[in-house]
């Protein structure tokens, strides 16, 4: 294809955006609105998962060291524990530290007559995957020098159930939202191209190939999709930061932590742009398909 022909087709695409300004505006607005709804919901899911992660991390396993071991031997167990699978963090808590912790948590006077030697050295362990808590507990119990392991398997099961429910519900809702959004967006684009069916018929009659007719529509769809995706991203950013500030500065900020926008920025931008372009281009191409059969 000659350069001047490509230039003409690209120019026609841009011209089409402005000459059908109202329909272009409608397409961009609908793409933007749908992406913001989908994006907001996805960000909500990301945050719910983050909260569940935090709660899971707080569900620690405590391994008590055999009281017959010397202090040095007890501390040397750290390497053995770290070598086990599914361990994400290990913290040694000495008898003295355990007593101090109890004193802080309960009435100090209760522990005044109790010697530290009553307490055992212990390891506070975080797991990489909470669903494998049973296996990890068994592995910890088999380490020489570990006398007892406390693990709340029932809590772990509870978290797994909650996560599974959230995953399934969010997956279903995201699929539904995506399907509805795609339908709305492609219908808007179809409506936009419906007003131009006469134009397409004229193009066909003067001998335009289907490729020649499609090209400006592809350019238009691409530009409108990018515009819709870009604007949706900027608005989503603003809304997210605004809502997060409200949460962080409010009472809820002490209870839950929110995912920083910078963490999700790039995946969100890529997803919005890709969705915008996909809907714009494919929507535009499928919308004119029927008018090309002349």
């Amino acid at each position: 294809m000659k350069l001047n022909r490509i230039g003409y087709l690209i120019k026609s695409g841009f011209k089409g955006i402005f000459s059908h300004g109202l329909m272009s505006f409608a397409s961009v607005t609908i793409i933007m609105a749908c992406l913001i709804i989908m994006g907001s919901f996805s960000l909500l899911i990301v945050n719910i998962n983050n909260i569940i992660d935090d709660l899971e991390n707080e569900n620690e396993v405590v391994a008590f060291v055999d009281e017959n071991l010397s202090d040095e031997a007890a501390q040397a167990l750290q390497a053995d524990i770290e070598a086990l699978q599914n361990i994400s963090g290990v913290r040694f808590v000495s008898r003295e530290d355990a007593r101090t912790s109890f004193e802080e948590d309960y009435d100090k006077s209760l522990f005044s007559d109790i010697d530290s030697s009553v307490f055992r050295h212990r390891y506070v362990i975080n797991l990489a995957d909470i669903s494998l808590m049973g296996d990890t507990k068994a592995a910890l119990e088999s380490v020489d020098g570990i006398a007892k392991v406390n693990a709340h398997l029932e809590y772990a099961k509870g978290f797994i159930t909650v996560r599974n429910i959230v995953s399934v519900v969010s997956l279903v809702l995201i699929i539904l939202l995506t399907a509805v959004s795609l339908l709305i967006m492609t219908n808007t684009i179809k409506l936009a191209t419906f007003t131009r069916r006469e134009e397409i018929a004229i193009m066909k009659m003067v001998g335009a190939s289907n490729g020649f007719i499609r090209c400006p529509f592809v350019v238009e769809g691409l530009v409108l999709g990018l515009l819709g995706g870009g604007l949706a991203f900027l608005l989503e950013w603003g809304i997210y930061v605004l809502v997060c500030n409200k949460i962080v500065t409010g009472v809820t900020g002490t209870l839950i932590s929110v995912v920083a926008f910078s963490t999700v920025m790039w995946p969100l931008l890529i997803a919005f742009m890709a969705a915008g372009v996909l809907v714009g281009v494919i929507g535009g191409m499928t919308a004119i398909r029927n008018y090309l059969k002349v």
Partner: protein
Amino acid sequence: MVQMNDVKMVYESSGMVALEDIDFEIHEGEFVFLVGPSGSGKTTIIKLLTGEVQAAEGEISVNGFDLRRLKRRKLPQLRRTLGVIFQDFRLIDKLTVYENVAFAMHVVGAPKKEIDDRVPYVLELVGLNGREKRFPQELSGGEQQRVAIARALVNNPRMIIADEPTGNLDPVRSLELMLLLEKINALGTTVLVVTHEKELVNAFSKRVVAIDCGRVISDGMDGYYSYEIE
């Protein structure tokens, strides 16, 4: 140039037989009127010639293209050898006169230099010089039809097909338009005009093919329209 042999056309959706036993030829450089009452099958013949619909039976050849065997993707090539003019002009409202005409050249991938040379020439030929920057809605019906003729002519087609080109014009403009088509024919382009305007046809001494109920009922060089339209 155009050859139709035993052509039968049936609309699949309704099963209606639109044309039957259609046999006629149009030779290079001819000026032919295709006449008949509404619903006689005139427009169906045009649709067949432009590849918009396919015949159920028979052979159709247009400008060397065998339409019974022509693949859909080759249709643009056939249409580039034709210039089609419609009753309702079918101009693109958002484009100026110049752009409407140049557009047909862009479609065939003509170089810019050629477009710059050819479009003003054709606009002058149809008497529209000075109207280049106007939009269709700023022109009279006659002028809009001239733009449509310019667009049909600009790629130097072998044949012009005009479907009721004077349907939206007053008698004076209609006559002017026919004179313009005659002039174009004199320059070597074959012209097929579909109409049901008896007086207009009678004003020219040309070949007249008359059809009714989907069949050719007369084909003569008398130059007048003998068939009585209801």
